[in-house]
């Protein structure tokens, strides 16, 4: 599977870069945590009310933090004409897409694994036993965000006002993920079971599969313009 092998090569290169310099990782961590504090100051809610809005707040935090990550996603390639060099090599464009989405996915997961428990601590929530289910939903949603976001990040690479344009085009398209993830998490927090959440999970999975496929197929055109 040449595609997967190439993706793995690209991903390991990017991960190595990231783990050495930790630019994106640290900024995303800090921003995610900062948002939790911002939420505390803007919302003066009782603890039980916070539990109701927790999924929404968390997903807002992830959306903005993820967008930060997406904006920096192709930064190494922008320096020194690296992108041109990559495109001249026999690298499959789909492999580039997979590697970059995976990178953003791993970065976001790292942040989420910290931010969600931190939220529970800072806002004094008690149902810690539900966290594994919430993580699962979050991972599915994050996958959808990363695949579509990587396409959008590459699309807006040469645009003016890129930092503004990226959220502008990305967020409306992310509505199925946002809706499904938040409603799913609300259902889990309310009932403690998967019953009400199942059709949302199916929608999330459909979104993930559709845009993963579209991303791999369309990335040739996306990156070469």
């Amino acid at each position: 599977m040449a595609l997967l092998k190439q993706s793995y090569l690209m991903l390991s290169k990017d991960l190595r870069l990231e783990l050495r310099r930790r630019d994106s990782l640290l900024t995303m961590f800090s921003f995610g945590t900062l948002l939790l504090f911002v939420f505390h100051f803007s919302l003066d809610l009782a603890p039980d009310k916070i539990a109701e809005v927790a999924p929404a707040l968390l997903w807002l935090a992830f959306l903005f933090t993820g967008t930060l990550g997406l904006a920096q996603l192709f930064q190494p390639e922008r320096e020194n004409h690296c992108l041109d060099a990559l495109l001249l090599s026999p690298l499959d464009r789909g492999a580039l897409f997979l590697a970059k989405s995976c990178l953003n996915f791993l970065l976001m997961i790292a942040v989420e694994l910290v931010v969600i428990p931190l939220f529970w601590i800072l806002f004094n929530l008690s149902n810690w036993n539900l966290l594994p289910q919430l993580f699962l939903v979050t991972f599915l949603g994050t996958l959808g965000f990363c695949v579509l976001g990587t396409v959008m990040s590459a699309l807006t690479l040469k645009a003016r006002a890129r930092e503004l344009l990226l959220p502008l085009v990305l967020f409306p398209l992310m509505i199925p993920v946002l809706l499904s993830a938040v409603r799913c998490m609300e259902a889990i927090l309310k009932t403690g079971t998967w019953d009400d959440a199942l059709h949302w999970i199916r929608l999330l999975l459909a979104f993930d599969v559709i845009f993963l496929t579209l991303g791999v197929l369309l990335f040739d055109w996306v990156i070469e313009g």
Partner: protein
Amino acid sequence: MTPATPLKRRKGILGALAAMALTLALFWSLAVAPPDAFQGEVQRIMYLHLPSILTAYLSYFLVFVGSAMYLWKRERRDDLLAHAAAELGVLFTALTIIEGAIWGKPTWGVWWTWDARLTLTAILLLIYTGYLMLRSLIDDEQRAATAAAILGIIGFFDIPLIHMSVYWWRTLHQPPSILRPDKAPWENVHPAMLTALAISFVAFLLLYFYLLSLRYRVGEMRQEISALKLARGA
């Protein structure tokens, strides 16, 4: 190159037809069709509102077709079509929302509500406004065209998903009275109303294709200007 005279005349005929059809639609909607049993005269906005949104859907479909064809064949005219259709789509969606608000205030009591269909229409407006912004913020013409084409295709695939997610979440909008699954359209609605709606829809289609041809021509002219500038600069 200026368009050949036959083309100008064709556009002119289309425009004249559109104008006549709109006048007929206006007359039929306001004078011939009876007022609604419950809503009274306010209901007549429907003769604008429904054709507006259906024209917008047609427009978005054309954006998808243009985008896909452009990526496949790389012919300028598909890109021009997609761009023109996107602009008109945004226009007609905005009109639909405004008309809906005007209709909603006396009937529902509010200018806006987050009911499924309204939310979906607003999302469509956002997506295609983003499309237009993407185009205008990328300087390289070919890159802009490709990027917009990708967005057009992705948007098209996302819309059913958005539709499902929003519908599962909310519903308040009147269930469709024309296209109900259990009754035939003519059993539900007064025939004169159906006729008014049909005439209105045809009128809007004519208007839409007239505007589309004009906007397409503007796009062609813009390209001619860039080509001339490039040639002059060399």
